[in-house]
């Protein structure tokens, strides 16, 4: 095997091994749960584990990793022993299995990390797309239950962009046909083409989606390890995790969810003694659940533990100078997302340092996600994280300002107010208006804030026939500011294209999109926009 190919196959082996090791980890925890509840271990579970271990061994030998093959062989031996005597499943045996899995994972990581970097032609640099008609690296078929191909993300991004551009182009052709006229045959064919292109766009977007369940194994393992470290018993459950979400969203959800899972074990669950005294099963439940809600996916991490100590949170907030007297219990629960506050009364090795939950909020911000908490004393706590299904399509309020179309993500739009400057006042010169709730609101021109040409609205908006500007209220959760815009064009799902990696980072613009009429739409970054407006 040529050196370059060997490295490629090793990387492929490592990817496949990661999936097998995750599956094995979950199976060990299954065995542990069966053992704890006094049920005999299931032969089928051990058999499936043995098959995974055997495949790991065979694959390692094939890609020239003898140490990995040897470690997998040792794992096989351990499983073989359990196969012969299912009653031998014990906490010590499952711990040994988990240790063996960790050892294998480390060996594989080392083998792949120490390999030379892939050759230049094997990488897809950011923004680079292979020329049309060249295949580049052929997709590599992998064995398994389904026919699966792996492909570089940059190529999938390019497909998404081209599919969206094709759908937009078809709309432009439609406009041209409307203008120049066309016979029935041509129009019929065109309608077919439009349907096909829309379907292509839909399918391409769908190709980016992966089930939430793919994140479950490391979370379950983290919960298991956390429980073991603090002497608690834990049962892991999953519900609805076949709900799908964009892979790039899911990857960035991993860290926040890890915080929440550890938090659930460390702060949520009681010790086995406390649980028994409270009439509960000694093993607490930590559950990962997911469900689709419109264009969002809600992922919940819940436990059936003691619930958040609201009095404790209230006391911590007051000690930090926060007036909590008028807050409801739900609002006090929401304070756990503030920096420095903790759901626990004491500091432990795992959490409770007052960091964690504010980090969850910070990690969700670039994902345009949000988190809510529900808690009931003695019954448990649930954190619900809502994120958009995909970052490739973004629901936006489209406005016209500075001579261009600008898209403001709807999650950052608090309101769009009709034009209401006092009679005879130049709206763009007006720096404060009253919002619908009667509160004063600072406003500035969006075109000027973006440093674009002066708003045409400012030239003389009160002339008959001149566009009457409207105010869009933008918020990032803590700040709010109004922006004069020339025109509101309505809400639209925008197929977002990131800015070229050649450009310096721009504070207020995150991406662009091609509009059906061929012009460009700019997607604005709410926080950067508020910064520029001095909000």
């Amino acid at each position, binding site marked *: 095997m040529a050196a370059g190919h060997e490295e490629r196959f090793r990387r492929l082996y490592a990817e496949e091994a990661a999936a097998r090791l995750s599956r094995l980890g979950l199976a060990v925890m299954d065995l542990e749960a069966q053992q704890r509840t006094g049920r005999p271990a299931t032969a089928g579970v051990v058999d499936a584990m043995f098959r995974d271990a055997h495949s790991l061994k065979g694959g390692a030998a094939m890609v020239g990793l003898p140490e990995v093959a040897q470690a997998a062989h040792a794992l096989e031996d351990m499983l073989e022993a359990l196969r012969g005597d299912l009653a031998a499943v014990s906490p010590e045996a499952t711990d040994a299995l988990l240790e063996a899995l960790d050892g294998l994972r480390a060996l594989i990581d080392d083998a792949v990390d120490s390999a030379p970097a892939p050759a230049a032609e094997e990488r897809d640099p950011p*923004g680079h797309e292979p020329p049309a008609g060249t295949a580049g690296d052929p997709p590599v078929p992998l064995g398994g239950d389904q026919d699966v191909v792996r492909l570089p993300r940059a190529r999938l991004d390019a497909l998404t962009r081209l599919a969206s551009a094709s759908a937009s182009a078809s709309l432009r052709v439609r406009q041209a046909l409307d203008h120049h006229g066309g016979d029935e045959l041509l129009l019929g064919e065109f309608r077919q083409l439009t349907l096909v292109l829309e379907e292509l766009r839909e399918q391409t977007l769908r190709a980016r989606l992966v089930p939430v369940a793919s994140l479950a194994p490391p979370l379950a393992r983290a919960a298991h390890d956390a429980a073991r470290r603090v002497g608690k018993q834990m049962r892991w459950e999953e519900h609805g995790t076949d709900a799908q979400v964009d892979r790039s969203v899911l990857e960035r959800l991993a860290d926040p969810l890890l915080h929440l899972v550890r938090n659930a074990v460390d702060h949520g669950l009681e010790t086995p003694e406390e649980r028994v005294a409270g009439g509960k099963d000694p093993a607490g439940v930590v559950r990962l659940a997911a469900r689709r809600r419109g264009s969002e996916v809600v992922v919940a991490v819940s436990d059936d533990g003691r619930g958040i100590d609201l009095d404790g949170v209230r006391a911590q907030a007051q000690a930090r100078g926060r007036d909590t007297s008028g807050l409801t219990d739900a609002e006090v629960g929401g304070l756990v997302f503030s920096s420095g506050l903790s759901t626990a009364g004491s500091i432990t090795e795992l959490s409770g340092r007052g960091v964690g939950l504010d980090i969850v909020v910070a990690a969700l911000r670039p994902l345009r996600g949000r988190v809510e908490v529900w808690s009931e004393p003695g019954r448990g706590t649930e954190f619900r994280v809502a994120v958009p299904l995909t970052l490739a399509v973004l629901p936006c309020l489209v406005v016209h300002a500075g001579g261009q179309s600008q898209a403001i993500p709807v999650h950052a739009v608090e309101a769009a107010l009709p034009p209401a400057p006092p009679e005879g006042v130049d709206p763009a010169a007006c720096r404060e208006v009253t919002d619908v709730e009667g509160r004063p609101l600072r406003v500035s021109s969006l075109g000027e804030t973006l440093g674009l040409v002066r708003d045409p609205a400012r030239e003389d908006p009160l002339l008959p026939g001149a566009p009457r500007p409207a105010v869009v209220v933008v918020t990032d959760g803590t700040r709010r500011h109004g922006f004069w815009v020339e025109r509101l064009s309505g809400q639209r799902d925008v197929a977002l294209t990131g800015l070229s990696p050649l450009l310096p980072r721009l504070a207020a613009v995150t991406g662009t999109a091609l509009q059906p009429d061929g012009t460009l739409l700019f997607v604005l970054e709410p926080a950067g926009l508020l910064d520029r407006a001095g909000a």
Partner: protein
Amino acid sequence: MRALLLPVDGALLAVPLLATREVVTAPTVTPLATAPAFVLGLFTVRGEIIPLFDAAQLLGLGGWTPARYAAVLDCPGGAAGLALTAAPSILQVDPEQLAPSPLAGASGTVPVTGPGRVEDLVATLLDLDALFGPGDLRLEPATAAGAGP
């Protein structure tokens, strides 16, 4: 090596012909809000959105280049457009003729002997890896002064 000779606001720049994807006439440029002055805006080529750079400002030559043409270049960090004031032409470059260039992001200068040019002109050969390479963006206007001819 064959190079594309690019007229940019009174200066002559050159890029390897192999790195040139195409030349667009009178591109429709949309200004990019909050971008530095050396970014003239964005334009589209068959659905691809490409940034258009003003090489004169990028190299510290001053001025502002009206985009009568745009050369679309395949650079290590992605596609880049360079605004041109006149139509480009093709030039044969002998690497042994290269002289050091005072400009940041340039490989050197080369006498222009291509068709329609007189021999007392020189072109600055751009180093696209240095100007538009991947990684941390280095796109800061250079402070070097003094163009080729």
